[in-house]
């Protein structure tokens, strides 16, 4: 009985440790482990230097705008040049110096560019 209890506790502890590790990692990421350098973004040229929405908003929400516009453009057949992904390249001329750097920093791998050409 005691042995059973012990092994149950051990399993529970192991599971909790496994769950906690990534949390610990991210919580202490600012010093304990390696801290990746902030990405250097080459800011867009062209246009009037302003994105379709304020920078702060775009930084955290561009993917939602794109996904939502996508459904309306593809399925609804609407013309939404303002939020069309193909419109991004009008200003952000080099994907490698803008999109990719930040995506790499955040560790996300969107599959947009498998089909959409943002050079």
């Amino acid at each position, binding site marked *: 009985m005691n042995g059973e209890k012990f092994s149950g506790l051990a399993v529970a502890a192991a599971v909790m440790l496994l769950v906690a590790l990534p949390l610990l990692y991210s919580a202490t990421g600012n010093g304990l482990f390696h801290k990746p350098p902030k990405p250097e973004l080459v800011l867009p040229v062209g246009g009037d230097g302003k994105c379709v*929405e304020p920078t702060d908003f775009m930084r955290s929400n561009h993917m*939602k705008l794109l996904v939502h516009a996508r*459904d309306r453009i593809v399925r609804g057949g609407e013309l939404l040049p303002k939020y069309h992904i193909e419109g991004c390249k009008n200003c952000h001329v080099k994907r490698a110096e803008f999109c990719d750097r930040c995506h790499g920093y955040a560790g996300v791998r969107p599959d947009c560019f498998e089909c959409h050409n943002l050079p």
Partner: protein
Amino acid sequence: MSEMDRRGFVKAGLAVLAGTALGNGITLFQARAEDGQDKAKTRWGLVIDANKCGEKCSECVNACRTENNVPLFGDPRYDGHWIRKATITPENVEGGKSTSLPLLCNHCEHPPCKHVCPTAATFVRHDGIVLIDKHRCIGCRYCMVACPYKARTFVFKNSEAWPNPDVPKRSKGVVEKCTFCAHRLDKGQTPACVEACTKSGEGAMIFGNLNDPQSEIHRYIKENAPHGLREDFGLKPKVLYKGV
């Protein structure tokens, strides 16, 4: 948060999560496209006059490949085909007259590919075009089995060629087919194949709005009574053939 208040944004986020359309009160985008009124009345259709289609000509096929980045791997098992040339000969007579014609998605009114698609990735647009939402396609290939015109191809591997960078290509694992060049129609142009056919002087393709009594295609159908392929299936194809 400028154009959108915080609450609206939460709603928008939820709506995106749930995959539904935004509510009316949210002004993320300008009102629905201005010309929404007659859009619903449009029914794009294509008439192909096989008598005028040259046996050696494949301008439509080439134009489509260049416009839509249809992949060509040099392996007939995997090549993409949005439009292809076929030659048909009657079986019952010796040396019967053969006819050359292009085959493409027939954009049926009752598309079996749409009926079988488990995720509703295949859908009919407001103007009657049968489209694949490749963001939603899971690559189960049921539509390819269900299509009686063999109009669909699967992307068996990634293609590197990107002749027209302004138009998306496909990544592997989804199904693709003719879109009637929906992106060109939205810009007020005709499909690439039709443009190429007219330019080459064959003039075998007439494209237009089937619902518009003033259109050339409407007049042509009235005078020449072209018919769809395998109309016995009852799918009501919107690509019609004359001289088949």
